[in-house]
């Protein structure tokens, strides 16, 4: 049973006093509804959240764009192809090796890269890769953090000591360097743990690496919360009623962590997307020829003079995605802040 903070009840909406069959009942707002209400009023957060959703929608539509508009795929090389622009035939890649710039038409809307691949198509597919890895890594990290933080905080003692030391060990490595080391090593040989076998090119590998590297940043705050929650009266009451440890963790502890997780999650996704881009830029993330915003920026740097859009466009998409998530995440955090008051409408 989750207990709402007293301050929320204290500011409960008077209209929630309901008359039911002659008896009155005070019906307070659930904290989720209060938070949602606060969030709805935060137009800036909503706007940036919508921006992120628009980017996600665009990336999800990548196959449609590729087949119906660009008539290619993200891997097809068009080195010796020619296209007609305003009645003039142009090389997709000139004999000197310089690729075509933005055509602002269906094919090669944002131009081509050095292998004659459509930048716009790769941009959208790259977004799918970056977002998939980012969200996947955030989900894995969250799951691992919940397990680690809850076990450590609930059981304390030796269990806490072991888990905390593991987290400290991971935390002691600079995250980018650790990510590069793991990414490079696993890219060469793949990952083989028991029945789990992943090829070096698998997109799961960067997801797993990012998840592992970022676990301490979530697990430690969760552990702190669990340490506090396990001393609460409702936990004692549950124990007195004969509930086992697992039952207590699932039914008493975890629900009280949910608001924290909801606040953390968008920020974790943003962090994971940025981390993936950094690893891919440095060659330790997504393997070629799979597109990702990070690899596209790395490739674009080579042609920064004749084709600045090759690096700038994926960079802008990355910035907008991270900005959208971060501002929205800030809005969610503000919405769940218990110190904020709900302004009620008085008749």
């Amino acid at each position, binding site marked *: 049973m989750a207990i709402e903070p007293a301050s929320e009840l204290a500011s409960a909406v008077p209209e929630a006093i309901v008359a039911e069959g002659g008896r009155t009942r005070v019906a307070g707002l659930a904290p989720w509804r209060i938070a949602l209400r606060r969030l709805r009023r935060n137009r800036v957060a909503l706007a940036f959240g919508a921006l992120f959703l628009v980017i996600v929608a665009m990336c999800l539509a990548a196959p449609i764009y590729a087949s119906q508009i660009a008539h290619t795929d993200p*891997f*097809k*090389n068009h*080195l*010796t192809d020619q296209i007609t622009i305003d009645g003039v035939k142009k090389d997709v*890649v*000139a*004999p*000197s*090796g*310089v690729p075509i710039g933005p055509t602002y038409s269906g094919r090669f809307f944002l131009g081509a890269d*050095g*292998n*004659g691949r459509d930048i716009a198509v790769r941009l959208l597919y790259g977004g799918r890769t970056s977002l998939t890895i980012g969200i996947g890594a955030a989900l894995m990290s969250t799951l691992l953090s919940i397990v680690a933080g809850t076990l450590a905080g609930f059981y304390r003692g030796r269990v806490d000591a072991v888990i905390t030391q593991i987290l400290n060990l991971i935390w002691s490595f600079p995250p980018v360097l650790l990510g590069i080391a793991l990414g490079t090593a696993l890219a*060469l040989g793949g990952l083989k743990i028991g029945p789990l076998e992943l090829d*070096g*090119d698998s997109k799961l590998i960067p997801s797993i690496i990012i998840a592992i590297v970022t676990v301490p940043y979530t697990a430690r705050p969760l552990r702190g919360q669990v340490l506090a929650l396990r001393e609460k009266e409702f936990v004692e009451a549950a124990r007195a009623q004969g509930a086992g440890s697992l039952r207590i963790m699932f039914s008493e502890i975890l629900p009280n962590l949910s608001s924290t997780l909801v606040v953390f999650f968008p920020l974790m996704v943003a962090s994971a997307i940025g981390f993936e881009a950094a690893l891919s830029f440095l*060659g330790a993330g997504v*393997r*070629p*020829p799979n597109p990702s915003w990070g690899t596209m920026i790395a490739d674009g*740097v*080579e*042609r*920064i*003079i*004749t*084709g600045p859009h090759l690096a700038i466009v994926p960079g802008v998409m990355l910035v907008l995605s991270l900005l959208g998530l971060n501002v929205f995440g800030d809005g969610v955090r503000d919405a769940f802040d218990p110190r904020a008051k709900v302004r009620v409408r008085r008749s």
Partner: protein
Amino acid sequence: MKKQASALAIATLMAVGAIGVSACGSNNKSSSSSGSAGSGGGKAKKGGSIRIGSVLPDSYDPVLLQTNQGNQALQLVYTGLVTYKHVEGPGGSELIPGLAEALPTISADRKTYTFKLRPNLKYSDGSPVKASDFEHTIKRLQFLGGPFSSFSSVIKGVTEYQKAKKADADISGITSDDATGEIKVELTEPNGSFLYAIALVSGAPTPAAKSPFKRSTPPGVGPYTIDIKNPTREFVLNKTPGFNIPGIAKGNIDTITVVKETVTKMTQDVIDGKLDFMTEDPTGDLLPEVKTKYPNRFRMDPNPPNTYWFFMNETTKPFDKKEVRQAVNYAIDSRALQRIFGGRLEPSCNFLPPSYARIGYKKIDPCPYGDPAGPPNLAKARELVDKSGYKGMNVTVWGNTKDPRPAIVEYLRDTLNQIGFKAKTKVIEQQVYFGIIGTKKTGAQIGFTDWYQDFPHPADFFEPNLSAKALASTPTFNFQFKSNPKLDEALKKLGPEADPATVADQWAALDRTVVEDANVAVYGNELTTSFFSDRMNFDCAGVHVVYKNDWSLFCLK
């Protein structure tokens, strides 16, 4: 040696052969310089220090290095009994005495070579050069399985030495007298390329006492000594005080610092003057900028002669079938690859480079797989893949990180997918690439490779890359891991000829055989570049037919 490519200067390189001609002047196709040559002495300014950008040698051990980057640096540190003349142009292919007093006396049956060491020679650490050190060097080359060990396998007793698998076993064909400085080398059969082979860095004597049978950097005799600061980041070449071997350039620059950088960064650094030279070719959008904005310090040359192709491992599926290898040849579009090279590739289907016109190159016309300068025949390629029964098979295309290799293998990946395979790329660090794919255990199916001449002889292209002899060393350059019996037979017959020009037609026929049997998938020859900073004297470009750029000829303004 893995190096770079050339095209139009066929006429200039007609003189390349067993006996070179000293010449001055640039022989390139599209050089923007007036060109000059010479040993860098006389008018060249002496002294100073320079910085060079490079992807660095694959090894600092003279018997183990494979790449041009290694050769350029270490040829200044290790001098062989004979060596190449330090001049620009075709004259650079001429052999001159190195540590030996003179070119060897060759017996009438052309099987015995007798050298005599110059007196009072000392290594860079001060220890005396002994005649017996040469045999030790050949033993190291064979024991460690250096990439060029196949060239010395013609020495009598080498086969027995290899079988003995003991470092200190004897090579019966090499006898020496430390007192007189005489070295006698007996071959199992006449071999026209033997002298050229031992003129390479891998044949340079090093002190037996300080050259263990493991990877190391022993002292050598050369105009420079090497100081490795960090093997993966930087090394320094310092002029050897008192170095004075007639005919060998002493070097104009006092200190040469070589640093590792990406190709893009080193190009920008040369533009900005932070580097004075780069061993690589500018790529991306910097090449057009360099060509147009800095013509007074940039040139392109067909040197050293080279060929680019895709290797296909004939011991693994799907390339164990000739139809598949032919399919790859039909599917390759050299025009596409030309674009990846920024226009510096001359399409070709010959295995030998055009500059070998006098000694074995004869343009294969028509090319069995279509005009290399024309469109590919994807339909025919798909038909052959269907016929092979390997359609849909997974294929990994190997490449290294040096620009533009990743783009080249990405192109091949896409092409293989178009003809019916499921291809993916595997790109690894350039410094370890050839060692990894040259190990049979790796099982590399197909990938990037190239070859720059070590010495001006067709055997230098065929033997290390395609012969059965090459398979004796690990790692090997024969990434096919199989040899064509017709090629081995031809090498046996043509190898002993002292002057390849006398059997040029037969070398040309061998070239055609290798192409028709699809042992390789050739796509062209590259023009190499020399790009200098503003403080370098462009007349001392040091373009060399063997070393690409002879750093001992460099000088400052």
